[in-house]
């Protein structure tokens, strides 16, 4: 069951879109200031004095990447949205946060894609990859497809916002359950196809938003935290069936000898120092379906 509480806004930053940072106090703990965020595209702006319902689960648990409450609904000014009557595809469907989007998927496929796709295991790699891309290929356009696995809200990443403002990314599409990007896609494959074919990206990056689902508590599960490999394989497979071999920075999720971290060490092996990129010849074992056939 959701851990929801009533709250009141004490302070609110100006944020025309994306994510708005707030300071709030809970009705049952007045005087105690708490950090909160509001997804502007989803629940609207908040102003000081607004009455809210917030989800306090992450902050109460002390999660490393969730040190704030999240606005579930703004009772003062969030109950009069007209919705989007022309759109009919739902994201976060069958939840109380379901909302309509207009997906980018096109009726016609144009394959194979003739441009490369890079796959990220962690959102923390995004800035470095985008910066290095711009240094090595000035003027070439690199787009980002945000997949599941981390934050689903496309407006949550400040890094992403900065990369867009600095021109290091040409666009941002949220795919699958991820939402709130500049464009919406039903699938990762659809987002990649649209970016590389229709928008004219010279290359695409695909990976999760910030924060990884359960990195510590599920670390022992091969398809839990270490399932980052599985998520990366999903994205790589999407590129693969579109006719492009995916590339991925290789150093991830090999247990370190000190046992204290799940982050990996050995991917680059003796060629360490970041001098390598390893792209899987196949995204995943087993039969694959090639959409070109």
């Amino acid at each position, binding site marked *: 069951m959701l851990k929801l509480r009533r709250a009141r806004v004490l302070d609110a930053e100006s944020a025309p879109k994306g994510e708005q940072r707030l300071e709030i106090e809970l009705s049952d703990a007045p005087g105690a200031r708490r950090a909160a965020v509001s997804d502007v595209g989803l629940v609207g702006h908040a102003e000081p004095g607004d009455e809210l319902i917030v989800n306090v689960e992450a902050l109460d648990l002390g999660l*490393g990447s969730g040190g704030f409450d999240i606005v579930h609904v703004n009772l003062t000014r969030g109950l009069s949205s007209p919705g989007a009557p022309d759109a009919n595809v739902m994201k976060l469907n069958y939840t109380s946060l379901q909302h309509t989007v207009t997906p980018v998927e096109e009726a016609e496929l144009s394959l194979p894609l*003739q*441009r*490369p796709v*890079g796959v*990220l295991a*962690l959102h*923390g*790699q*995004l*800035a*470095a*990859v*985008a*910066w*290095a*891309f*711009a*240094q*090595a*290929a000035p003027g*070439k356009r*690199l787009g980002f497809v945000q997949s599941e696995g981390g934050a689903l809200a496309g407006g949550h990443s400040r*890094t992403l916002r*900065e*990369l867009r403002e600095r021109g290091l990314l040409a666009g941002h599409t949220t795919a699958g359950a991820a939402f709130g990007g500049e464009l919406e896609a039903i699938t990762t494959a659809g987002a990649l196809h649209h970016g590389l074919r229709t928008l004219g990206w*010279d*290359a695409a*990056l695909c990976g999760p938003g910030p924060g990884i689902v359960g*990195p510590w508590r599920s670390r022992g599960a091969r398809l839990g935290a270490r399932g980052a490999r599985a998520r990366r394989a999903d994205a790589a497979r999407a590129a693969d069936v579109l006719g492009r*071999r995916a*590339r*991925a*920075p*290789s*150093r*991830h999720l090999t247990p*370190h*000898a000190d046992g204290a971290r799940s*982050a990996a*060490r*050995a*991917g*680059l*092996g*003796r*060629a*360490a*120092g*970041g*001098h*390598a*990129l*390893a*792209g*899987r*010849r*196949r995204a995943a074992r087993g039969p694959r379906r090639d959409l070109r056939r």
Partner: protein
Amino acid sequence: MRSPVGAELRAGLGAIFGDDSASARPALELDVERPVRITRHDWRRASVDLPAYAASGLPRSTMGRGLAEDPLFFGAALAGGTALAELALAAAAEVEAA
């Protein structure tokens, strides 16, 4: 850290982050064509410039670890960006030639 060049990387980063024991950028040499354990991948090399990235003003920490603490994380990502750019340039050249 199991990287054989970890100390050198740290030395270079020390030049940025104020470690007096190191005053030069790392001069890294790959001592193998392809690591033995890498058999199922298309292996590529790419040069990276950690100090330049550190000076870019972009985020340089991941999961609580800074660039100097985890240079391989950022090195791999920078290498990924460089190699991806090379692939993009090659793909553009292919299209132009076709």
